[in-house]
């Protein structure tokens, strides 16, 4: 795409001698040559994981490796059937995980193209806007505030160019860049402008060489991920202990190496909820695709879950609440100036300033061109931290004196208290007010090294800029507030302007909840924290304070999302747990954001939050099923071990239970086919429930196993007396059949419970027919598989007593579970345990 050069581009830039030829850039032929030789900036989209990462993370997990070794040993020892059945678990995990993540990657990569960085390069003396991947070596690349150099290079033209290298070096002070200095990819232009020549492209660039690029600097886990990780870590720790005990028990009881390995496979399979990790990654990947349909690009996969945790949403006023289409409403001359003089000063400023922000564009459109032919002597570019910018002009008159035109925040620039009051009045009406002041007779000094505000200033006038609220913002704020999210506006504008616009948007603002930069500066740490937590509107805030506010909110326990679009939001983005950028915002803000709102509208946020909530529910439901099954099997193995009976479950039997009754339903839950009941709290509703349900289920399985084991012996003649070796073997197969069938029915009841279905309330069975049908189908298939191939699954068909136990114990256990859940016992338990 070819574009006209911006008015302030090449012709206005002060070029070093000899640079005139250089800024013509490469010719079309030179570009074609470089493309032919592959000297092009190869772009790797970091919005999603690479295929290599997806395969690596799904295949080479600790669980898969340790389990794989045991299965290989089993196969070597001739137990290939056990190895095969246990291997199905791993294989299905890998296949489902990889397929879903690759599909999600395709969708997200397509979407990522919409937000890919565009770069302005100069070729044949013309500025062209090209995608990042079309930049070639030696291309001349323009930089303006908010731009991120896509490659490393040397500065050819610097117009007060200041780069922020904090993402690379941690240094928060902006670095001025002169001609010949190096700009690095991963840094970004904070003020001024310039042109640099691409020297190191693709993998040679700084950002590519260090792993910590601006996009990948943050690898934080969401609260839910942290909790689930803790649970998995506890399980793995318990596995180590159980594994050691298993080994000792095997040596002590003279168990064969084959049996030791077979049962080790069961123990590992029971302790590590590998399918849970799978269903979480599937839910997150599909969630990212789902949310992307709402014109929201997810750049960090767990941002999907993160969205659901947000309790405080901080936003910048401009561009998020308002349209960010500033229009000059009026210019108000002050003191000795008339309208024409003020107009001329503004026209000079906007025509000479190197880069235009939205305010400068609005002023340029309103004022037009200056009448005088004054030349620019120097410039201090506008920055959010300074809150003002200036242009020093040389008069062509005989005295050749210098005049500095300064435009910026009225609170900082205006000298006269009356003028300050006037500016404040306008601000209270929600109007953005800029002050225009001048300083005359200043010495010819290099202002770029001394960027101080002149002490003698003359108030010239005010510029009133109006920005309209976005049409959907009131509904959006109402929807977010209804979800219990507190909205805070942190802006560089005057606090009165911000408060007025926030009120119009529906945010409840009172004088006690309004704070300015100077208020915050005067506060000690305690008051600052209080202001951060209770304030609703923060005005004239510099980026560093914005960052401090967010950090304080996070420290005080709020889960904070930050919506922004400007370069000044980047430090705050780094502190926030969820960074949300607008698609039309500065490139660097998009690079570091977790989520990009592709249509620049906040209105998609409530929908995206809703989708995030649904994904969390899917993860919690999967966790509930997996943890219940795991706890149930672990406790059954332990309880049966107490009475020194043979191992209660074979690897192949456990595979049937896991695959049909847990894995299939959780995958269907993850892809959204099955709806589950709302789960609010991980600790209470998932972990607490799983512990209780697992314990009761294990009691049912153990009782069933023991009674079937001993009861089955009653069929023998009363005088039969046998050796202990025969005794251990004879009842095991029937007992295992009874115990696995009890496990199947009980887990099915837990699954139905998660889908609002209770066998004790027949209406629910008729209401939610799909989970009922699915559960019955899965149970029938698994039971048929087990009973039609008893030899393969090492079971004996249960006798009458066995069937009585199979029917009686799981339903009774489920009823007892409901009874305990409904009783006051559980509510009183924590208090009873904590009392001395």
């Amino acid at each position, binding site marked *: 795409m070819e574009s006209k050069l911006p008015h302030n581009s090449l012709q206005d830039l002060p070029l070093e001698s000899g640079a005139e030829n250089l800024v013509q850039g490469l010719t079309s032929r030179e570009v074609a040559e470089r493309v032919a030789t592959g000297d092009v900036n190869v772009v790797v989209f970091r919005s999603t994981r690479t295929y290599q990462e997806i395969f690596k993370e799904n295949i080479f997990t600790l669980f898969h490796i340790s389990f794989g070794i045991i299965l290989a040993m089993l196969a070597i020892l001739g137990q290939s059937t056990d190895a095969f059945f246990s291997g199905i678990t791993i294989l299905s995990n890998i296949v489902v995980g990889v397929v879903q993540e690759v599909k999600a990657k395709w969708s997200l990569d397509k979407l990522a193209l919409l937000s890919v960085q565009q770069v302005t390069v100069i070729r044949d003396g013309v500025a062209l806007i090209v995608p990042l991947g079309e930049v070639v070596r030696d291309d001349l690349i323009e930089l303006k505030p908010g731009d991120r150099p896509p490659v490393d290079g040397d500065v050819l033209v610097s117009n007060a160019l200041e780069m922020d290298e904090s993402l690379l070096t941690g240094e928060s002070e902006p670095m001025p860049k002169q001609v010949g200095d190096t700009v690095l990819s991963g840094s970004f232009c904070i003020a001024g402008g310039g042109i640099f020549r691409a020297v190191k492209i693709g993998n040679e660039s700084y950002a590519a060489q260090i792993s910590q690029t601006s996009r990948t600097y943050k690898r934080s886990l969401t609260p839910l991920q942290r909790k689930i990780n803790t649970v998995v870590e506890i399980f793995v720790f318990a596995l180590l202990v159980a594994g050691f005990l298993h080994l000792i028990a095997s040596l002590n009881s003279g168990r064969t190496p084959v049996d030791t390995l077979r049962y080790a496979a069961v123990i590992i399979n029971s302790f590590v909820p590998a399918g849970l990790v799978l269903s979480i990654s599937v839910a997150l990947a599909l969630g990212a695709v789902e949310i992307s349909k709402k014109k929201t690009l997810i750049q960090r996969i767990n941002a999907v879950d993160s969205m659901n945790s947000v309790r405080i949403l901080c936003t910048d006023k401009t561009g998020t609440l308002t349209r960010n289409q500033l229009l000059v409403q009026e210019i108000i001359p002050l003191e000795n100036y008339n309208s024409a003089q003020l107009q001329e000063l503004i026209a000079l400023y906007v025509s000479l300033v190197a880069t235009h922000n939205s305010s400068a564009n609005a002023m340029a459109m309103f004022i037009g061109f200056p009448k005088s032919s004054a030349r620019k002597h120097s410039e201090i570019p506008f920055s959010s931290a300074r809150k003002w910018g200036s242009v020093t002009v040389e008069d062509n008159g005989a005295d050749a004196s210098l005049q500095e035109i300064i435009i910026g925040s009225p609170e900082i620039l205006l000298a006269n208290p009356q003028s300050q009051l006037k500016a404040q009045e306008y601000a209270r009406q929600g109007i953005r007010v800029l002050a225009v002041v001048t300083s005359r007779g200043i010495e010819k000094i290099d202002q770029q090294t001394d960027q101080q505000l002149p002490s003698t200033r003359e108030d010239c006038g005010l510029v009133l800029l109006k920005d309209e609220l976005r049409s959907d913002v009131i509904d959006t704020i109402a929807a977010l507030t209804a979800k219990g999210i507190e909205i805070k506006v942190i802006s560089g504008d005057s606090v009165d302007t911000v408060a007025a616009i926030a009120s119009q948007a529906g945010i409840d603002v009172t004088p006690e909840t309004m704070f300015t930069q100077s208020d915050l500066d005067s506060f000690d740490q305690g008051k600052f924290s209080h202001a951060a937590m209770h304030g609703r509107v923060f005005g004239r805030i510099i980026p560093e304070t914005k960052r401090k506010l967010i950090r304080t909110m996070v420290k005080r326990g709020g889960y904070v999302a930050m919506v922004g679009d400007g370069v000044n939001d980047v430090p705050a983005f780094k502190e926030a747990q969820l960074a949300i950028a607008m698609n039309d915002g500065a490139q660097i803000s998009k690079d570091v954001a977790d989520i990009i709102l592709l249509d620049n509208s906040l209105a998609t946020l409530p929908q995206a939050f809703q989708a995030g909530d649904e994904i969390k529910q899917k993860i919690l439901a999967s966790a509930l099923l997996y943890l219940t099954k795991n706890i149930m099997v672990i406790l059954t193995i332990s309880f049966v071990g107490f009475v020194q009976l043979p191992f209660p479950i074979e690897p192949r039997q456990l595979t049937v239970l896991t695959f049909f009754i847990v894995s299939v339903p959780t995958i269907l839950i993850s892809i959204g086919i099955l709806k589950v009941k709302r789960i609010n709290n991980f600790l209470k509703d998932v972990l607490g429930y799983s512990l209780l349900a697992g314990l009761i289920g294990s009691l049912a399985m153990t009782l069933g196993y023991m009674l079937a084991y001993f009861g089955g012996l009653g069929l023998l003649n009363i005088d039969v007396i046998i050796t202990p070796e025969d005794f251990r073997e004879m009842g095991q197969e029937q007992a295992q059949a009874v115990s696995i069938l009890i496990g199947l029915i009980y887990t099915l009841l837990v699954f139905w419970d998660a889908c609002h279905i209770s066998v004790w309330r027949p209406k629910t069975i008729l209401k939610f027919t799909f989970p009922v049908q699915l559960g019955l189908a899965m149970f029938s298939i698994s039971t048929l598989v087990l009973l039609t191939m008893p030899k393969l699954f090492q079971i004996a068909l249960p006798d009458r007593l066995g*069937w009585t136990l199979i029917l009686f114990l799981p339903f009774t256990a489920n009823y007892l579970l409901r009874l305990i859940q409904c009783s006051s016992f559980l509510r009183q338990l924590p208090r009873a345990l904590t009392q001395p």
Partner: protein
Amino acid sequence: MVKSKRPLAITILSIVMVTFSLVLIYLRIQNLRSLPSLNPFIETILNQNFGTPVEGISVNVAFFSDIAILSISFIPLILGVGLWKLYGWARAISICLLISVVIPRTLAAIGIITDKGTTVGTNLLISLASAIGLLILLHPQIIIIFRRNTARKK
């Protein structure tokens, strides 16, 4: 507080369950007493020259079988007492128990599942008795009485 009136059917059912349980317990204890030793491992008997024809350490399987069935036999007793007091949980678990008796007994009677220890007639009889018990517990008026009793206790 007005005490709810216990239906005659429930009174009979609970008496039958308690009686059945007591009979089972009695039979099992008798069975245990008839065993050569209450010790499941016969080794000690051999060492004490009791004359039991065993070699080395042996296991008295009937002992384990009796202990298992004895423990199951207590369930109808507990449920019978619960039904007598019109507890909701007793009704729910009794339904579970009766269903899990009716189905396997019927299947055993028609020969689908194995049951070497009991005759077809016994199976049919127990199945029929359990089915009658089940019908009592699932009768709408009985359900209302149990619900009312549970609500009053709350």
